[in-house]
């Protein structure tokens, strides 16, 4: 079931990304270095080009890198299949891939695909939990850089809105 879901996610990516595939995503994990210390240095390091991309192809171009492999060793946790409100969607990602260096969250159908990138220094568990906005139901990609290589997993999250009157 997971494999099938991921496979569908991958097809969607390939369809959107064309020949460039997921090359670029890969680099997402590479931009941040643990040794970057000091908030000011970090702010300057913010990868505007990557965060400004509006579709997979652009994101790839902005980042550059090799094509990530589908991985069953990337696990979503505390991530619902259906979010009651798209303003706050809990996302938990654990990488069971040895030597994980970073974890990135991408939302396929958001205006800007890239939501967040976490650098995981040695000694920190390759697992993060945060909350993101989703404009609509979409695939969410977890992109992991480990030992210089790149891996990806996808999860489909539906967003419902509701309530009365508005």
């Amino acid at each position: 079931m997971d494999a099938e879901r991921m496979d569908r996610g991958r097809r969607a990516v390939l369809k959107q990304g064309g020949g460039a595939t997921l090359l670029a995503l890969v680099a997402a994990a590479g931009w941040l270095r643990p040794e970057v210390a000091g908030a000011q240095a970090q702010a300057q390091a913010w990868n505007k080009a990557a965060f400004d991309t509006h579709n997979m192809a652009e994101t790839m171009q902005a980042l550059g890198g090799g094509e990530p492999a589908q991985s069953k060793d990337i696990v979503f946790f505390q991530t619902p299949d259906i979010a009651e409100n798209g303003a706050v969607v809990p996302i938990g990602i654990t990488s069971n891939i040895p030597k994980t260096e970073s974890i990135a969250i991408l939302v396929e159908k958001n205006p800007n695909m890239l939501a967040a990138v976490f650098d995981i220094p040695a000694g920190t568990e390759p697992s993060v939990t945060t909350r993101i906005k989703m404009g609509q139901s979409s695939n969410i990609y977890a992109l992991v850089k480990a030992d210089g290589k790149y891996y990806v997993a996808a999860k489909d999250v539906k967003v419902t809105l509701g309530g009365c009157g508005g």
Partner: protein
Amino acid sequence: MADPMKIRANVTGDTTEVKVLMSHEMETGQRKDAQGKTIPAWFIQSVTATWNGNTVLAAQWGPAVSKNPFLSFKFKGGAKGDKVLITWVDNRGDKRTDEATIA
């Protein structure tokens, strides 16, 4: 001036779990106000967590991270009484650092 973060750091065995709530609008830059004017983007761009001077997490965020962000992670090491520092910087250059004592 931004409100302080709420940071919890608890050690179990050799692992410290850190949970952070930040007070921030995380405005996407895509919403319009009542007059139809675009509300400018305003969001945290980078987050760093340090323990004993070591970076234990570094993140870059876009505006798709939810308002009043929540972040949780774990690192090896840490002892009761140690300090964990969290710093964020937003796209206006505002910056905030808060610390928590590991319990």
